[in-house]
């Protein structure tokens, strides 16, 4: 495998890490207005992701930086083309990030309510737009012959990209609910379990619809064969269906594993459908950005490969350790480790 393709894979890894980890943070955020009955339970839900959300978000920062370094033309066209969408993502992420530290800083119920909703709306909005945004890379945007986006904000919306947005919202909400079944106890746990059951149907239906559509769009609009994109799509559908089964059988760890796999399958299916292109042009297929026409030179990629091979395992190690340290369930009395 040449370094350009390796970096395409590493970008997929970084976005997968982001969807897997911040996916459940967003899910917990979306459930904030609905699950807890009192302020203590709201606090418990915040605490369930409190120690880890910031580290999870760095997967986004790194994915962005790595795209800039390894595929400058892709980074430039994607970020300037999806301008208003990314502006909205930034708005949602900012109000959400701040809610974590600021909510508890005043006893005022109004203040706490504002930041709870900031987290919920931020999580929902960011999930929706990530779905719409990534789907656009495959469905195609107006890209001119100099490789620049040449359209309007409304060009980003069509049946497929909207379906992608809704599917990502549903999958993240489901993923957040299965995460909460691992991290909470008592009444909150019971309610998280019920929410997971309800969300499992929506996530499986929308997720399957989106993954199948992705394969269709890949064949239709990106000159791909059904195989290989169908492989991650099938795994994703199976994972979401199994997650629904496990949720009903109260196999919490397995359910969470499967929703995580479902979140990763969204990214892997999309990028498998894209390769070797990274952004399809709807103006003229020949204008599409590809791995090779948007990549950095060999030396930069070689340097970045060494850095990534040293640091990604280290990051996985200490982030994994963090999850071990905070394995105890939150809320309720005691808070001792339960597994």
């Amino acid at each position, binding site marked *: 495998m040449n370094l350009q393709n390796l970096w395409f894979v590493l970008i997929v890894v970084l976005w997968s890490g982001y969807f897997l980890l911040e996916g459940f943070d967003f899910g917990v955020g979306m459930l904030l207005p609905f699950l807890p009955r009192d302020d203590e339970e709201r606090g*418990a839900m915040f*605490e369930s992701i409190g120690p880890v959300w910031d580290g999870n978000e760095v997967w986004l920062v790194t994915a962005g930086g790595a795209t800039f370094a390894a595929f400058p033309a892709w980074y430039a066209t994607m970020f300037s083309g999806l301008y208003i969408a990314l502006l909205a993502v930034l708005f949602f992420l900012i109000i959400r990030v701040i809610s974590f530290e600021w909510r508890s800083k005043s006893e005022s119920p109004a203040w706490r309510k504002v930041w709870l909703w900031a987290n919920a709306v931020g999580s929902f909005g960011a999930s929706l737009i990530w779905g719409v945004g990534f789907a656009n890379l495959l469905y195609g945007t107006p890209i001119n012959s100099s490789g620049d986006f040449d359209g309007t904000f409304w060009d980003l919306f069509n049946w497929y990209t909207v379906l992608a947005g809704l599917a990502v919202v549903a999958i993240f909400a489901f993923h957040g609910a299965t995460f909460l079944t691992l991290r909470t106890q008592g009444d909150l746990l019971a309610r998280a379990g019920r929410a997971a059951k309800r969300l499992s149907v929506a996530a499986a239906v929308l997720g399957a619809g989106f993954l199948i559509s992705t394969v269709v769009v890949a064949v239709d609009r990106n000159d791909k064969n059904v195989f290989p994109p169908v492989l991650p799509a099938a795994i994703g559908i199976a994972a979401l269906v199994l997650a629904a089964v496990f949720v009903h059988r109260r196999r919490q760890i397995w359910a969470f594993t499967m929703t995580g796999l479902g979140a990763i399958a969204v990214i892997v299916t999309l990028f498998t459908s894209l390769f070797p292109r990274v952004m399809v042009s709807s103006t003229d297929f020949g204008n599409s950005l590809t791995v090779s026409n948007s990549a950095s030179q060999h030396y930069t990629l070689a340097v970045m490969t060494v850095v990534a091979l040293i*640091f990604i395992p280290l990051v996985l190690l200490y982030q994994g350790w963090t999850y071990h340290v905070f394995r105890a369930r939150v809320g309720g009395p005691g808070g001792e480790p339960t597994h």
Partner: protein
Amino acid sequence: MILASSTTVDLARAQFATTSIYHFLFVPLTLGLGPIVAIFQTMWRRTGDEAWLRLTHFFGTLFLINFAIGVATGLVQEFQFGMNWSVYSKFVGNVFGAPLAIEGLAAFFLESTFLGLWIFGWNRLSPRLHLATLWIAVIGTWLSAYFILVANSFMQDPVGYKIVNGQAVLTSVWALLSSHWAFSAFVHTILAGLTCGAAVVFGVCCWHFARGRNVELFRPAAKVALIVLVPVSCVNLWFGSHFGILVTSLQPVKISAAEAQWEDCQKCAFSLFQIGGFTKSDETPSFSIEVPGLLSYLSTGSFNGKVTGLNELNNQYVAQYGKGNYLPSIEAIYWSMRVMAYAGSFVALVAIIGAFLFWKRRLERLKWFLWIAVASSFLPFLACAAGWCLTEIGRQPWIVQGLLKTGSANSPAVSSTWLAISLGVFISLYAVLLVLDIWLMRRYAGRDPSDQGGASPAPAIGY
């Protein structure tokens, strides 16, 4: 509504300036307050004195209130290169992207993950390990600053690259990482960050002294703050002026612009204040107060040094790069440099007087000085903002010195309408957050540290 492309560039510049200056109100506080909180916690571990633990919780809370905004606004910075400056991003991505990506992998992961461990780890980690998590997070923030400054240095003093097919391509990552400019900028920034952190801690202590509250508790905190603040603020004045010599050799326009020095000169005077003299049609100020030889010393290291004037520099650039105006806004540079230097000097002066009064045990009773110290805790932030204005406006018209001009580096896909929307969103959102942040900081800085059960090692933050 589609306006001329110069308007688009101006809007993009206005947005970058707004969001960067705002981001950099919170960054230096993170860089400087983090280690001071870590010192407090280390003192608690060493002495077992509960007062240090209270101080750790007290200033730790102030640290976290601001850290959140720093993280949130940092994302904007990373996205903005691609969103607003796509031509620039394509041009420098091979080189500039690398330090940004390394920052994420090697520094930001470290700081975010270990800060999470510190905030929630009070009862779950052994005390030694828990203390280590904070120090590791601090190291992460400093490493972060280093890699970001390496990236910025490429815009000021491009090294370790060659131009291939109209793109800057990396040829030596070591040249990039060990750039003399990056090293100087890093030291200057860390010292500025420590100045900000220590000035805030000292200011908060003085506020409590002035109101006669918790005097015994805040005295050791004031001592630590002064031990940091006096040397750091003084050394940074020297280091910053020394940095000027490097800047002169690489970006002579910046230094001559900072003095509004139109003609070549030797034994050049530094003007402390001047009226007029900032434009080509009005080269001679109508009034000025000057220090003989100081400009020569600041830019060459010798009171007898020669400084090339703006007119001659512009001629040299015209000969090298073709017709055009290669001078930035002289008035903006002149005043940025002075605001930075005067604010920095005043903080150093307050620190020295404060240390003297502290040593004589008179600090807590001198009300007028205490209020000056409280007000002075804002000055390092002003100095930082002015310093970045000097650095970035002083580089114009270049976005990458000598290689690419700002006027042709913005995103062709982004219309002025989109930019107007995003600038409006950022200004309104940031304004609201700043008001709330100041309200929160005032509330938490004025609190009685013994109110919050700080004596028991409870979590610093409860949800």
